[in-house]
């Protein structure tokens, strides 16, 4: 049983494939790393799985079915762009998500916000970009989603807060959910990943268990990344 299945999934924007003939099957109980440079299709792949864009060809199925509202309620997608209205306070951002999502835990949110040193009364417009990045993550990690997709969760986040975020991700992982993380910061993420998926110009060029990939190629994921994307 898979939480996310992509079958020859393609998304074109004006004839240019952002995701190109991608076939993937993501299992529950695992943390996957979606790796690749800017423009390799990582965000588009997540948006396809979140139902925010529609395929040009091929298919994506989440939790055994097409991406429909009932399925989307069990998917949490954290985009790279900030999306909270400036007038809201951190507390209100939490309440807003609690209204929308049955699986949102306000307690978990409060605890995470505290660990990330986000004050409940601060307005979104007063937050630095780093704080907003942390808030985005706190919101996503407070949902008990079966498929949790985080697009560049460590971007703009300071060194110490990174550990808080990685801990939050580890804590959220259980044997029933799937966590898909896209990141440039491979050396930091490596230890948290079960499996890696390399995207190059929208195509899946390599995938497998992180440990097995390291052993098979005789090098770290970082070194392998350099090789794969050198040309």
């Amino acid at each position, binding site marked *: 049983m898979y939480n996310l299945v992509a079958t020859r999934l393609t998304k074109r924007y004006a004839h240019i494939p952002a995701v190109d003939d991608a076939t993937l099957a993501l299992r529950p*109980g695992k943390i996957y790393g979606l790796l690749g440079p800017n423009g390799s299709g990582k965000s588009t792949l997540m948006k396809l799985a979140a139902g925010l864009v529609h395929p040009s060809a091929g298919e994506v199925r989440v939790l055994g079915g097409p991406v429909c509202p009932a399925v989307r309620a069990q998917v949490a997608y954290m985009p790279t762009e900030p999306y909270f209205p400036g007038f809201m306070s951190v507390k209100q951002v939490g309440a807003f998500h609690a209204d929308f999502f049955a699986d949102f835990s306000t307690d978990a949110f409060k605890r995470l916000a505290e660990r990330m040193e986000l004050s409940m009364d601060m307005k979104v417009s007063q937050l630095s970009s780093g704080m907003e990045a942390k808030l985005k993550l706190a919101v996503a990690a407070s949902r008990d989603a079966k498929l949790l997709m985080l697009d560049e969760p460590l971007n703009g986040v300071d060194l110490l807060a990174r*550990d808080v975020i990685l801990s939050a991700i580890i*804590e959220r992982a259980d044997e029933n959910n799937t966590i898909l993380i896209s990141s440039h910061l491979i*050396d930091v993420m490596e*230890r*948290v990943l*079960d499996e890696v998926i390399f995207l190059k110009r929208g195509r899946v060029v390599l995938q497998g268990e992180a*440990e097995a990939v390291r052993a098979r190629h005789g090098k*770290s994921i970082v070194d392998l990344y350099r090789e794969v994307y050198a040309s």
Partner: protein
Amino acid sequence: MEYDSRTPIYLQVADMLKLRMVRGELRPGGKLPSTRALALEYGVNPNTAARIYDEMEALGLCRTERGLGTFMTNDESVVRALRRQMAEKLARDFVREMTALGYTKEQMKQAIGEEL
């Protein structure tokens, strides 16, 4: 926590736990952290944490009891043997590297004597 990304992470963490056992920081027969707590403490994937305990159980250093957790071995001879193994490896590595520097046996003994 820095990891060498060329050797499997689970082996590196297992080595750290072995060191704690040998130093008496972990109590023989005592309960070890849950795989989740281990994952959080060392910043690794929870499946990696499970693998760490599998690896150590295969070495007779701990045993996992379903529903109860993982417990360190209460056999002190196992811990003593582990300590001996780790010390022997250090000695072997020392001799190998000193040989590569061109040191004779006598010179190696002298070098150690100076350190102690």
